[in-house]
């Protein structure tokens, strides 16, 4: 029995962290947020060179075929470094969707390109989880029409995988006609968000998703795991920065970190956040090894970490006082990243509703489905 990261996982985490420290400093992140696209592209490429695009791709298609825990470790490092790079959608959810539900041709066409860093696929599954406004897609005769909001890693993507409300997955080429891409501006400037409006766009069904939603559920749960790991990584940085700042900043003749009011804020962040590292590892392990617990663990992780991330990101800004509120200090990049992670692929309330349903807690829910 060993509960923790392996040496390989730790060393992958370290190599990504080191790369981001050197290449994605706060100055670089600010430049990206101000619109320097080239900077973000360079960071993305550097991360691809470290192997992030091939993690989840099977070896036969040129990938590393690592497990979910490896991917979670990478997601944590990316969150810690507020990395302006595709990952959760393009390099985790997309290859997983293709591996689980794609035809041989679809796999042959896309998996090697993903592994090599030559293709980014955006994931539009929000409408399966809970459609906002009148969003949603319909498929007939090989064509898709409709609207998909918050397509993860969809900006400048080469293709999209979209889910309809019954959980079927469709692949569309970004070059197809009838696609209108609208940029969405969120608080989080470290990642792009888009909306797709589709009119009679050529689409292929991922055949493994036709009959039942097990593939889309697994893809979403794995995505939730990545967003949670991202939040835990980002939250840990906010906590560490809080402790460091409180030891530096002096008021009333002493470091503010010597006041119990401030110490207890840091202790409360720690008490909530420390178990979340273990929870990420545990949920990732279940995803690959303990099928009967995998769904509940992923949903609970997403909801719980979202709450803890909110508490930590708020408290951290407070520990920094007025400086925490400034653009100059830049804490807000972590705050906003945690804020977006909280809503993507299901806000805490939606996900808890789902895990209640999974356990059969609510008879009315069970009947409806």
């Amino acid at each position, binding site marked *: *029995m*060993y*509960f*923790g*990261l*392996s040496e390989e996982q730790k060393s992958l985490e370290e190599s990504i962290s080191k790369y981001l420290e050197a290449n994605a400093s706060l100055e670089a992140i600010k430049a990206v947020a101000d619109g320097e696209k080239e900077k973000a592209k360079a960071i993305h490429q550097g991360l691809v060179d470290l192997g992030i695009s091939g993690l989840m791709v099977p070896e036969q298609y040129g990938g590393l075929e690592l497990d979910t*825990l490896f991917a979670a470790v990478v997601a944590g490092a990316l969150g810690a470094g507020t990395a302006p790079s595709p990952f959760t959608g393009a390099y985790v959810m997309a290859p997983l969707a293709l591996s689980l539900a794609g035809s041989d041709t679809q796999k042959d066409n896309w998996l090697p390109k993903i592994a090599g860093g030559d293709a980014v696929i955006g994931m539009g599954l929000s409408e399966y989880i809970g459609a906002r406004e009148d969003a949603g897609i319909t498929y007939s005769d090989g064509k898709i029409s409709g609207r998909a909001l918050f397509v993860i890693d969809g900006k400048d993507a080469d293709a999209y995988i979209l889910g309809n409300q019954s959980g079927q997955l469709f692949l569309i080429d970004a070059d197809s006609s009838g696609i209108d891409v609208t940029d969405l501006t969120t608080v989080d400037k470290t990642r792009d968000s888009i909306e797709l409006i589709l009119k009679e766009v050529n689409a292929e069904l991922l055949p493994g998703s036709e009959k039942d939603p097990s593939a889309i559920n697994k893809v979403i749960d794995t995505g939730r795991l990545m967003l949670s790991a991202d939040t835990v990584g980002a939250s840990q940085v906010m906590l560490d920065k809080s*402790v460091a700042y*409180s*030891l530096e900043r002096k008021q009333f003749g*002493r*470091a503010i*970190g*010597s*006041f*119990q009011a401030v*110490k*207890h804020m*840091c*202790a*409360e962040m*720690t*008490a*909530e956040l*420390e*178990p*979340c590292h*273990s*929870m990420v*590892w*545990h949920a*990732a*392990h279940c995803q690959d*090894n*303990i099928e009967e617990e995998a769904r509940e*663990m992923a949903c*609970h*992780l997403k*909801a*719980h970490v979202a*709450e803890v991330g909110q508490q930590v990101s708020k408290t951290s800004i407070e520990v920094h006082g007025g400086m925490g509120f400034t653009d100059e200090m830049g804490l807000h990049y972590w705050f906003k990243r945690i804020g977006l992670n909280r809503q993507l692929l299901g806000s805490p*309330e939606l996900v*808890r*509703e789902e*895990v*209640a349903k999974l356990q059969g*807690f*609510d*008879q*009315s829910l069970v009947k409806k489905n």
Partner: protein
Amino acid sequence: MDLEYGPEYNDFRKEVVHFVKENENVKLEGPVRSESRIAWQQKLIDNGYFARSIPKEYGGFGGDMDIIKLRIIAEEFAKSPIPKPMGGQGIQMLVPTILELGTEEQKQAYVRPTLRGEMIWCQGYSEPNSGSDLASLQTKGELDGEEWVINGQKIWTSTAHLSQMCFILVRTEPDAPKHQGISYLLMPMDTPGIDRRPIKQMTGDSDFNELFLTDVRIPATNIIGQRGEGWKVANATLGHERGSLADPNATMNRFNSLVNLMKGETINGERVIDKPVFRDRLLKIQGRIIAQQSNALRILSSQINKGQDTNMAKFITKLQGTELRHDLEGLAIDAMGEMGTLYEDSPHLRDKGAWQMSYMYFLGLIIGGGTSQIQKNIISERGLGMPKEPKVQGA
């Protein structure tokens, strides 16, 4: 990452399952120290299901220190109504301390009867003016020939009315700095000069006592460690207590009872669990329990695999575990509404009033064993390396 215990443990689990099945209907009778209780405790020791790694010569089973086997025993016992091994401060705190720091004579004299449940211990630590600041304690111990003479007052002494012995902290070196002037003594409870007054709690029960000590004379040899080392000795045992106060696996069992309660309670004919607001609170609690279970697995792993640093994971368990359990009991009361306030032997009472009882009891545990605020000091100072509050002069 590997959560399997390994095939080499399959036979061991089978043995435990067999024992549990064979003994699931055992009923213990009489008060503590009754013959049937002592016999059961001894049977558990003889089979290696209690005091497993304690040497045979001191009354234990004399087995290897195998954390996974201990875990398997705990898992299988938890699934069954079989009577559980005794706990208490003697077993959880005194025995590990004596084994670590006691003399050979002390090990011979105290460990076996304590393990068998023949000798019950209470803890004489807190004083009316020394709670969170325990090291400021003032109960005096003076050496008079071959005897310690103890004078002073202790408070929050659990099970003092059932105990034969008390492990007590007294100030024996009044001129030394406060942490270096304390000794750890072993005081028989039938010694003349001990006056006990029960403290009635908000729950209605009296689990605690005040002890008034007037010229209590005990042998000079009844000391663990050297004079003035009592603080160090006591800290060895406090570590043993904190880990045991709020086990997340026990909290998950309690959660399952809460689910059943919320399925049974109705408002205008609708089950409480079907109401989204209540259900969301329920699921939030479940998520918090799972987080703590994951944290506990990491700690367990560090006991098996040397070199895993889990200090921070350990520092947070008392704070998080007791607060969570209190919240859980509070949700049960809300789920019952007015019915949740019923107590004692009222008509319509649910589960013998256990939810209110636990709601209050766990508030007691949030305070006892180092308050939540003291836990936050420990997390920030020892865990995060933040500075202590500056000392007030003269304190």
